[in-house]
């Protein structure tokens, strides 16, 4: 790593917020272009799978299928918000619009850019997660008051998938590679992270242990526990996983940001 920059680039929250404000100013103009696909996706799944397929399932894990589905899809909404932001949007700013090159002619430093972008990705995951939460609350799927415990899980999920998206985006040379990220990474996570069926009913032994590497599994398990109002020791593992993986990936992304923006 570059000693010269590490010594002098002191990360400063005021500058990170100015980066966040840039995205917020732009989002106020274009939110309807972004919000429609990412927010309606889990809503459509809720309607199709939850109501449609769920009609044939009398109960699953002790609840109706719709109740089973709701907390998992909430995490998916948060995942989507952070993922779209840190993949396509950041790639365009980095490689085509040269947004960060312009920021770095001002007192803004690479670390401020990183912190500002992660905060913004978390904000978007909260916008999507928040909207979806309102929808499931209107469906009567949020138990009160335990369901409110799910809310802190939304920004945590945003943080985790912001870190993953950034780590990927900073290392790829070509925008077409995002189809791999979405089709071969996020889609399998979506399908096999305890959202549509309980993994423990279908997998056993080593497979069940192996499934613990899936990042989306952890927020989903926490969200479901929050809805049920049941604490368990495994939730500490889930929380630890999310925080440690986020921290490691962000440290790697920090290096990437410096390498890409300075020389």
């Amino acid at each position: 790593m570059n000693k010269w920059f590490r010594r002098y680039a002191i990360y400063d929250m005021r500058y990170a917020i100015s980066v966040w404000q840039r995205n917020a100013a732009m989002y106020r103009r274009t939110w309807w272009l972004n919000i429609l696909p990412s927010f309606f996706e889990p809503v459509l799944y809720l309607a199709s799978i939850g109501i449609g397929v769920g009609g044939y399932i009398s109960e699953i894990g002790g609840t109706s299928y719709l109740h089973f589905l709701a907390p998992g899809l909430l995490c998916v909404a948060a995942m989507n918000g952070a993922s779209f932001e840190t993949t396509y949007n950041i790639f365009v700013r980095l490689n085509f619009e040269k947004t960060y090159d312009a920021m770095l002619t001002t007192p803004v430093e690479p670390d401020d850019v990183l912190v500002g972008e992660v905060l913004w990705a978390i904000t978007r995951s909260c916008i999507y997660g928040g909207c979806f939460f309102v929808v499931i609350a209107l469906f009567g799927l949020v138990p009160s008051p335990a369901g409110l415990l799910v809310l802190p899980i939304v920004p945590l999920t945003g943080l985790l998938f912001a870190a993953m998206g950034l780590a990927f985006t900073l290392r790829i040379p070509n925008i077409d590679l995002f189809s791999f990220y979405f089709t071969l990474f996020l889609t399998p996570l979506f399908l096999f992270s305890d959202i549509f069926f309980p993994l423990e009913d279908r997998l056993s032994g080593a497979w069940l242990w192996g499934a613990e590497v899936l990042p989306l599994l952890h927020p989903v398990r926490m969200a479901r526990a929050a809805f049920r109002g049941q604490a368990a020791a495994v939730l500490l593992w889930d929380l630890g996983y999310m925080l440690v993986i986020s921290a490691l990936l962000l440290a790697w992304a920090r290096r990437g940001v410096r390498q890409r923006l300075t020389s």
Partner: protein
Amino acid sequence: MALIEIDSVSKRFGRRLAVDNVSFQVEPGICFGLLGPNGAGKTTTLRMLYGVTRPSSGSIRIFGIDVGRNLRRVRARLGVTLQQNVLIEALSPEENLRVFGRYHLLREPELSRRANELIDFLELRSHAEVPVRLLSGGFQRRLAIALSLMNRPELLILDEPTTGLDPAVRVTLWSRVRELQAQGTTILVTTHYMDEAQRLCDRVAIMASGRIIDEGAPAALIAARLARETVEFDCTAAEEPLFLDGDGAGAPRLRVGRRLMVYLRDATALAANVRHRDPQDARSLVVRPTNLEDVFLSLTGTKLEATE
């Protein structure tokens, strides 16, 4: 004290030496031009000034501050317009200015006040509320310059500010830059347009292959290298003796393809000779004062041939 002091600065990218032991100083209040062909190292030099590229060796001081030591303090006092316009296309010029001002930690009401000042200064008022994507190239360029003025910089760095703009826009843009200079802003500019550099810069440095090969006031550079008048016309190398016989025989000359330029203290006789031999003006004869472009060509392009 000089505003910019660059001392023996080199930058190496892997095995390529992009900037090779460059030193120069820029006094406060002047317009300093950095000229040179593409790949000469101009942009790398600028990037080292505002600190996103770190010199491999040498030192850079701006406002007396070591750029390597206190980057934020240096950047807070300078403005940079990059070669590529970096604008938020969905937003209006006014909103773009406010977004950019926040990078300098400007707050309301100063943020809006400054944005409006610059909208007037760069004559953007008629389109202040229109999404940037709908603006012409000239408007976008003026906005890009306005952004770099949000923090009232003492030093304005312009990287190829007029490339790709039509002449009328170039003229208005330069008049704004002159006004800034009149208000005390120091200007550092790179450009391909030698005529602009000659007219607007108090001093220029000519770069080629990472080195500064000449530096000084434009008029002094011309006087030191070439005679003050230029006769320019089409002719092949084989035809040269025919035209240069007598009057231009020993004069320094420069050739770019079929175009021959001859540098003389007094061009009258040679011009008359060419007219005499080419009454139809098929050779596009031009007689003009020698300019910075000639100096540039003699230093970087075709070799200067003098037969004496």
